[in-house]
């Protein structure tokens, strides 16, 4: 088991969790692998490729669901079985892509990479989405440190 505590106040996590649950549901509906498919002409091969990615994305989402539903996560505690680490890392990336495409869709790439400097003047939906985005990045970063 890999365990660590996030350096994030629990009131922020508590505030962000409902948004994350909403986004989690969206990420399952919204998944579209066709735009990232390499230039392959065979339709059967394409279908198998996309089906494979979809199936594996579901496994990754389950690992993320276990984290979000864990009773100690709202206090900043992350506990992950070693076998789940890779799935969780991918699940975290997927939900960050979903946040990027929904709550943060108005934010330009450069600003997102550098960090939104004037977050307090943005729309509340952007604010909560941005905190969720950062929280998921923090979990991912710490998890990578732990396994390195």
């Amino acid at each position, binding site marked *: 088991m890999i365990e660590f505590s996030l350096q994030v106040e629990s009131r922020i996590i508590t505030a962000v969790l409902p948004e994350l649950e909403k986004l989690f549901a969206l990420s399952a509906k919204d998944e579209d*692998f066709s735009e*990232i498919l*390499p*230039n*392959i002409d065979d339709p059967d091969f394409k279908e198998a*490729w996309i089906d*494979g*990615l979809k199936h*594996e994305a579901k496994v990754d989402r389950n690992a993320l669901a276990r984290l979000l539903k864990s009773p100690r996560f709202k206090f900043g505690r992350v506990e992950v079985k070693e076998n789940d680490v*890779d799935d969780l*890392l*991918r699940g975290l*990336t*997927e939900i*960050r*892509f979903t946040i*990027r495409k929904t709550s943060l869709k108005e934010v330009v*790439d*450069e600003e*997102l*990479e550098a960090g939104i400097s004037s977050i307090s003047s943005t729309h509340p939906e952007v604010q909560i989405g941005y905190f969720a985005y950062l929280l998921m*990045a923090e979990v*991912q*970063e710490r998890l*990578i*440190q732990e396994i*390195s």
Partner: protein
Amino acid sequence: MKSDILSSSLSSPLLEEKTELDERLGTPWKVIVLNDPVNLMNYVVMVFRKVFGFNETKATKHMMEVHELGKSVVWVGEREQAESYAYQLQRWRLQTVLEKDD
């Protein structure tokens, strides 16, 4: 004008012959990773290490190419293996394309 030339060339027997020849000779394919604003730098390094077995230095070099130049050719070789790598990278949500190495 260019597209007319291209479309007529695409259907020409000469090109089909060349394509078949390419396949027989095993023309190399490039696995190219594109930049995105979401994935963390250390995540990309970790994925390159996991998928290709790169050491830290090589994985970081490719990650920096993706970050600064917008893309990096991470592997070149036989098509089947290139597809396998592209699939694995996409599974890790890295934007990946395949291109013939002309």
